[in-house]
């Protein structure tokens, strides 16, 4: 199928972009235009693939594991490509972010691209709004993770020499805080949109199902990290460790919980 060929071609472009970024950081080179070009090429092919599948099945990429992974790789790439394009000083952080994406891409490749059934509770605009906000949230946290990864890598002699061109740690920590703040706003919006959807679909706006519980825990950890940065005057390193913690909880919420429990977000017969 052409849609799958487009997807595989997009993944190849992403892998080249990520590999070149890692090699460039190691060799202290700056092939930034090539990397950005490959990211954009990959995103174009990926968008075509998602659009073709959407057109064929009549619903968006949010039913099967394959669709969810594919759309999340797409949204993470959009978020990082935008940051890469608009904030040139942090471009070498691609060497931190792309391996995370490689992991999700590897998972995607091993997943069955079969079709799923759209449950009746998914026929609502609030689903798109909820998912859209969630993707912006996760994109913000991913960019923050890349920046924080650079701060943490600089603790080693190798990392310090490879990332020496980047702004000082305090400036990077401030940029990371901005991304986390955007993530916090959109995580909050995601929870609100999800509550509206749940009220319409299941007759309750909040029921502490596994996904809701984990999403709220993510919100709390994110709130804690933003508050701690201000209250405890955290060092860039300590702040970065918190960003990594937020990313891990958010990653588990996005990619772990929906596949452990299907209680809330699927329709019964």
């Amino acid at each position: 199928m052409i849609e799958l060929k487009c997807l595989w071609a997009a993944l190849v472009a992403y892998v080249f972009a990520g590999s070149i970024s890692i090699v460039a950081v190691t060799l202290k080179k700056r092939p930034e235009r090539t990397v950005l070009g490959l990211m954009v090429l990959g995103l174009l092919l990926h968008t075509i693939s998602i659009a073709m599948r959407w057109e064929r099945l009549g619903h968006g990429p949010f039913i099967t594991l394959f669709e969810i992974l594919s759309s999340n790789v797409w949204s993470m790439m959009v978020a990082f490509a935008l940051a890469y394009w608009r904030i040139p000083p942090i471009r070498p952080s691609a060497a931190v972010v792309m391996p995370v994406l490689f992991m999700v891409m590897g998972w995607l490749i091993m997943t069955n691209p079969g079709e799923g059934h759209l449950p009746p509770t998914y026929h609502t605009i609030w689903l798109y709004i909820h998912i859209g906000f969630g993707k912006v949230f996760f994109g913000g946290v991913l960019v923050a993770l890349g920046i924080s990864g650079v701060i943490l890598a600089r603790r080693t002699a190798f990392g310090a020499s490879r990332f020496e061109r980047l702004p000082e740690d305090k400036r990077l920590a401030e940029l990371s805080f901005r991304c986390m703040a955007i993530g916090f706003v959109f995580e909050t919006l995601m929870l609100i949109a999800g509550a509206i959807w749940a009220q319409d679909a299941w007759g309750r706006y909040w029921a502490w199902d596994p996904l809701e519980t984990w999403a709220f825990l993510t919100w709390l950890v994110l709130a804690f990290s933003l508050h701690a940065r201000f209250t405890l005057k955290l060092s860039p390193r300590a702040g970065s460790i918190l960003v990594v913690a937020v990313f891990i909880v958010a990653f588990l919420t996005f990619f772990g919980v929906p596949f452990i429990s299907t209680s809330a977000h699927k329709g019964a017969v």
Partner: protein
Amino acid sequence: MFQSSVMILLRRLASLKLTLVALIILGAAIWYAYIYEAPATWVLVPSLLLLALNLIASVATHPAFRRMSGLLLFHLGLITIVLLVALGRLTYLKGKVELAQGEEFGGQLMEVEAGAWHWGRLDQVRFINEGFRIAYAPGVQRGQTRNAVRYLDGSGKEQVMDIGDHTPLVLSGYRFYTSPNKGFAPAFIWHPATGGAPVLGTVHLPSYPINEYSQAREWQLPGTAMRVWSLLQFDEVLIDPASDSEFRLPNRHRMVVRIGERRYEMQPGDAIDLAEGRLVYDGLRTWMGYTVFYDWTIHWLLVVSMLTVSALGWHFWRKFAARPWNETRLA
């Protein structure tokens, strides 16, 4: 003296470090409720109370809030959300009810859970289940539910509407949602030998199609101690796993009834004469399970949540717009 003591207490309560502690306690409480499946409300109340007191004290004492109105509005919003959720938990109602086709809701629920301050007007709510349509995709995948209901609106005028996924029936603030729980309901008329008025009743067989192979239920004849076991049998494939289909009554069916040691196979109109009275099988209908929800705070929660997140967005926007993103050094 008293004033200074209050101020000391307020300042201690307003500690930003206490906020971090309260967030950790709230997270731990949620984790505890999640792992041990404890009732979330009572586990969360102490930590939410601590957080709310800390927020109120912070807003009252920290000068930073007077300089940053977006941040102030965000925290006031959080306090209001906690208060609204608390009020909602005191006044809410959640319940379940099943109605056969043609049956009127009489204000009684099969399962009910309500806050301590819930003032019940549910007994005044009336509507009639007029039956439903549900399409199924191949693989017995349920599609949209369309359940026709009849009710009187606020002006006393009769209304008919289709409710279903994403469309509840809202009467006096009570929201009735259809559920995946639905099935067949054989109707019987019981004529007591004592000469009392005949009683029409329906037996709600287990939810269909999830319990496709166990369409039986035991029940009791009204005013007697007699147990009746009834089984619905039909040979048709109603919901074909291989193609598109729709939930419907079987074209031909048998109602197998067992009373004591006697077994009967009944068609609509058939009767069984017993010493205690006469049991007539009236025919097969459907039943729908409804989830009932009442919480007057939900619209206020939505408004306050939107204002709260807007205030936070405004605060960050002003903060970040002051300096470009691609600046390499801190000012």
